[in-house]
């Protein structure tokens, strides 16, 4: 696959309140041949970075380019999966209703076409949740909800998949399943994952972007405990798993431990 820049941030700064920048002088380039994990402490600016890429917010200074154009122009080429905890689970929708939302487009009105439904079935099967299609979204387990939301993102036929905290609030078993999904998808499209969990840096990730007001980019195989604790600003315990899940890279597992004196506000 030819490497092309898909996301490029140049000298980007952003603050919600004047004088308290969340992101400062951020330079970041993500290519389509990479599977990227954005990590960093809470409040460090991961979500802000994500919102800048999606065009939900605009930078105070600097430029954000996605597929060489503005985020507003590029957003339909991105498949986005939000954290399900942000959704209203009492809303009366079933799994099919949710996945079909991925087929919405500018100027849409009326009803979904047969082609839209076929795509929805295909992505549901791909995420192995086709048998849940008629179940209410609220009755699913955390892991099933994540699968449905990934399916919805895939229903957009995206060129890049943006996943916000895919393993937050789910049963531990889902993490392993998610690696399997990742293996499946990474050959077809570039994937950007946001996670507060450093342990996410697995064999399936080749670039780690650490965000804490500033941004540092690491190749996954080079990442060290020092690099992680530098960005977190406090001691981070690393457990080096030498056993390899897929036989590609070293699998590094990190657990962040608070040792007081944190400076990530």
């Amino acid at each position, binding site marked *: 696959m030819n490497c092309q820049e898909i996301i490029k941030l140049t000298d980007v700064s952003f603050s919600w309140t004047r004088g308290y920048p969340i992101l400062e002088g951020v330079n970041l380039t993500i290519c389509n041949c990479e599977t990227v994990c954005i990590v960093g402490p809470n409040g460090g600016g991961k979500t802000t970075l994500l919102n800048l890429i999606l065009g939900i917010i605009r930078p105070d200074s600097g430029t954000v380019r996605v597929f060489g154009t503005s985020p507003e122009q590029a957003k339909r080429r991105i498949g986005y999966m939000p954290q399900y905890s942000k959704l*209203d689970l*009492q809303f*009366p929708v079933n799994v099919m209703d949710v996945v079909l939302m991925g087929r*919405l487009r500018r100027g849409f009105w009326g*009803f*979904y076409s047969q082609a839209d439904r076929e795509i929805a079935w295909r992505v549901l099967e791909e995420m192995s949740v086709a048998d849940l299609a008629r179940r209410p979204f609220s009755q699913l387990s955390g892991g099933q909800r994540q699968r449905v939301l990934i399916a919805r993102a895939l229903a957009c036929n995206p060129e890049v998949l943006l996943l916000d905290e895919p393993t937050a609030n789910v049963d531990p078993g889902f993490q392993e399943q998610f690696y399997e999904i990742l293996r499946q998808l990474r050959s077809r499209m570039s994937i950007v994952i946001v996670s507060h969990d450093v342990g996410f840096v697995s064999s399936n990730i080749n670039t780690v972007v650490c965000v804490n007001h500033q941004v540092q980019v690491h190749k996954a195989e080079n990442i060290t405990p020092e690099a992680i604790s530098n960005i977190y600003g406090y001691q981070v315990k690393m457990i080096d798993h030498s056993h390899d899940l897929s036989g590609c890279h070293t699998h590094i597992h990190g657990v962040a431990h608070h040792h007081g004196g944190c400076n990530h506000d």
Partner: protein
Amino acid sequence: MIDFLSRLNSPELSFLKYAFLIGIFGGVAFGVVGTYIVTRRISAIAGAIAHCILAGIGAAIFCSQRFGWHWLHPMHGAIISALLAAVIIGLVSMYAKQREDTVIGAIWAVGMATGLLFLAGTSGYVDVDAYLFGDILLVSRNNFIMTLVLDAIILIPSVLLFNNFMAACFDDQFAELRGIRVKATYMVLLCMVALTVVLMVSVIGIILVLAMLTIPAAIAGHFTKRLWSMMTLTSILCITFTTSGLFLSYQADLPSAPLIAVLAGVTYLLVLVFFWLFKRKPKK
């Protein structure tokens, strides 16, 4: 019952017939819009819009008397003020995220106060209660025709934009990323709420309309798991509450609007008790 049905057709009770027809046709719009109000959690906004209608009614009566604008019917004022309130509240909730509830409360009270001042400036007696609590004695054929027109205006966008509304209400950020104009969709939804409130003002009044906008949908939410089925059940409940309320009020010689609201409220309470007793699920 048969006696009652035959009386529905008698000319001297034509108001009763039209009230029934308004209840049946209006119930459909109430079912659709009430479902959005409950699932999107905007019942406070619906309440504020409803109370602002008094400002429009007051202004219309005042102007038609003071300036001789006799073509201006109170219901025209009601429609204009409801739409105006919907647009103002929509802008506030979109662009001033903090303290949205405060602004809604202010619009709620000030809208009503403006209406009362206009009515105080009008010479002669105006029956404010008829607008606040509804008065089926005043229901006429014209009310029914207006209901049909408003019904069509509300139901056409809600069918054509059903999937857009659903996506925007469930996950506005995702809908926005797919190219749906979420803010415009929300504005259309609030305007639909405004017109729905006006639709049944003659039967149920400004204050009690909130009961019909929220309670049937809240009940339906316990039995249905999809948006369209919730709308269908809400519509059926709305029609049932209004018609049975009107029937009981005729039989017992009691005001109809409070009867309709109490009927809905008691049913809701029974449903809640039923679910609490028999369908308790372990808390997540």
